[in-house]
């Protein structure tokens, strides 16, 4: 049975918001999946809290609308509980790079087989315009009216250092490429990270800047770590430089969920095991 992929929930993103592009991309991709005869019953979307997270209300698939910064540990638990599920994590930049940074690093380190899509608009939208970890130096937000006094962090470089197996960057105005990147991330067996540059129509409308600076990486991906590091440092989310879009790094290695999978033990056998253990303590 095919389903309507968009729910009846009223959409409250601002006109021109980059989130529409990500939602549309996911909708198309899910619809293709259904057309290929694959069920959507085993797809789970986990979101944090922020503008990005409303996508959990809008997509008519299993979803866990979690807490600010905490989508990734939830997704990790879901994947460990049932490795047959396809787990997609939609997170924000304040969400995953500030509040929940520890979880992002550890998910990459563990190589848990989930796909993390960061809706990176480089500003807090829902709390009305404060700087995030990827806002450029001097960004004037409502908590930093005189401009920030700190450099942004470079999430691509951070993910390389953390051991992520699949690292890509997309842009909401390059939707076909974005779809390819998300599909590649989902197809990657292991932790996949996609930083998606999106504009915030209300608080960080950077369309012109991105449009004039982005360029496409070749479709073939080098598994060479050193050259990926060099490429990641080309643009540091602060200085004026070319912005590469595409896959920075892809390497397949054993996943956390594969390594952690338990061999099931039946109820009777468990009771026997409890009994044996108690006998051994006599």
């Amino acid at each position: 049975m095919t389903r309507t992929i968009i729910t009846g929930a009223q959409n409250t993103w601002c006109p021109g918001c980059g989130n529409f592009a990500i939602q549309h991309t996911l909708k198309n991709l899910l619809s293709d999946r259904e057309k290929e005869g694959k069920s959507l019953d085993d797809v789970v979307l986990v979101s944090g809290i922020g503008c990005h997270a409303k996508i959990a209300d809008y997509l008519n698939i299993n979803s866990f609308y979690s807490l600010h910064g905490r989508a990734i540990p939830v997704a990790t638990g879901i994947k460990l509980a049932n490795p047959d599920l396809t787990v997609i994590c939609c997170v924000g930049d304040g969400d995953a790079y500030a509040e929940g940074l520890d979880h992002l690093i550890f998910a990459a380190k563990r190589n848990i087989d989930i796909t993390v899509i960061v809706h990176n608009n480089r500003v807090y939208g829902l709390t009305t315009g404060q700087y995030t970890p990827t806002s450029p130096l001097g960004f004037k937000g409502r908590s930093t009216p005189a401009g920030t006094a700190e450099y942004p962090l470079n999430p691509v470089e951070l993910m390389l250092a953390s051991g992520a197996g699949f690292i890509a960057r997309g842009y909401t105005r390059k939707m076909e490429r974005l779809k390819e990147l998300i599909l590649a991330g989902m197809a990657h067996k292991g932790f996949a990270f996609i930083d998606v540059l999106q504009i915030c129509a209300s608080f960080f409308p950077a369309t012109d800047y991105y449009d004039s600076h982005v360029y496409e990486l070749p479709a073939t991906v080098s598994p060479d770590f050193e050259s990926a590091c060099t490429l990641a440092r080309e643009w540091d989310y602060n200085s004026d430089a070319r912005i590469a879009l595409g896959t920075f790094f892809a390497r397949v290695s054993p996943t956390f969920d594969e390594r952690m999978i338990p061999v099931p033990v039946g109820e009777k056998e468990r009771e026997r095991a409890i009994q044996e253990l108690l006998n051994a303590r006599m």
Partner: protein
Amino acid sequence: MNEVSVLIGGKAGDGINSAGAMVAQLLNHLGYRIYLYFDYPSLIRGGHNFAVIRGSEQSVGTCRNHVDFVLALNEETIERHKEKYTKKTVIISNKDLVKNGSYGIPVKTILAEEKAPVIMGNSALIGGFAKAAGIEWEVVDAVFRRHIPKGADQNLAVAKKAFDLFDPVHPINKCENGSQSLVSGNEAIGLGLIWGGLNAYVSYPMTPSSGILHFLAEQKDRFGITVVHPENEIAVILMALGFAYAGKKSAIGTSGGGFCLMTEGLSLSGMAEIPLVIVVSQRTGPSTGLPTYTGQSDLQFVLHAGQGEFPRMIVAPGDAQEALYWSERAMDIAWKCQCPAFILADKTLSEGIYSLDPDPALNRSGSEASLWDSKIPYRRYEDTASGLSPMAFPGAKDAVVKVNSYMHDEAGITAEDADISNQMTKKRLKKWETLIDVMQGHTLVIQSGNPDASTALLCWGSTKGVCEEAAEELGIRVIRPIVLAPFPIVQIKKALMGVIRLIAVEENMTAQLAALAERHGIITHEKILRYDGRPFTVEDLVSRIKEAGI
């Protein structure tokens, strides 16, 4: 009545805990019921560690002030515990390190003769103790072979050399009982969770809860469970909620400090109605406090933790047997009522070793949780008379399972409208009543001691053992709620019939159970409190009850 207390002391790293466990097994094989208390500071090497093993013909869950035997691995042990000695106390010591022990054992010489490693030195002291206590060699031989199968011969050879040095000094009698299983409170909690159908245990190490993590991690293949130790306690609770959302029974364990980090996730469990078992094993607070010492100062915290209003269950077992039983119950009730269930323990219970009935009736008393009947469309938060919505898990055909931390409608979609907020808040809180119904039929309050006495002690958790003994000595009653939320007011009121004087006994400074009881109209007349991290002893409590006046 047959009764014996043995103290073993030495430096941290001397293997005091394992030597204590061997002494406990010797007494167990003579039919004694056991309680072992292990005292250690928060460090790895050096510092003074000691264990007190108490054996009694009747069940015990506490220590007395005096000891009958001391096994001193160093001089400090003898000096430190002088106030526990009586004229009859027998001191067995390592002659190489202790100058004035009455029964010195030349450990170094024995080890050299047997070409045994230093670590086997404790076997010499255990051998010496066995003889001094008049325990037959056959018992020593059997216990060593059963409990240290690896290297049993060499350990026994070392023990025998020391055994042959002495004559029985203070022979102890055999009891009529058969032996039982010796397990720690933490192990009993772990076994109870397994028995309750646990699929995943998630925990970040924190004393005194870590024993559960270690035990389940070691036994995970035997029980077919997943054990995860993530980056912090925030990840712990969120991961566990992920497991439960996907249909797997999960539990987490921590102590007060770690639980502070979990409160946001706890509130999520309440809002999203995801079942979860949370073990909080208390230690002395606030903050880092006394990491390896006990306390009962987190009851009010656990009762109120998390923003917003949602039902929760809190159980505080008093010993290993209750920990085993109630951990299974907690898992069942959490899933039945789709809410968080707490097992509130403390250092005394978690790390104490108790005698446990080796043949518990492992019948699951629970009925199944409410599950989806495949009727489309699936609505995760369908409003029902009980407040319980049938559960489905992702992967189920045609079920779109949406859970949400925001206020949401029956389908799980965010809703900020006043009517839906009203309806869904009522739906969640209806589950308090459902929880109370589900708890009916369980013994939620234990009454012990003299049922005709008009004076009663009101206590909770691990002070069970000490309160019951003190009450028996003084001919008074003990009223002990095992379940603290929902507060079992009906059963407590019944237990209070005929009580004129009620004395709260707690290991905190503000009498937290007494405060809880007071909110339900139950007045305590006196409070006996201890908050130095050490558990009450029987003599200690008896004299303070007498001081307070029966």
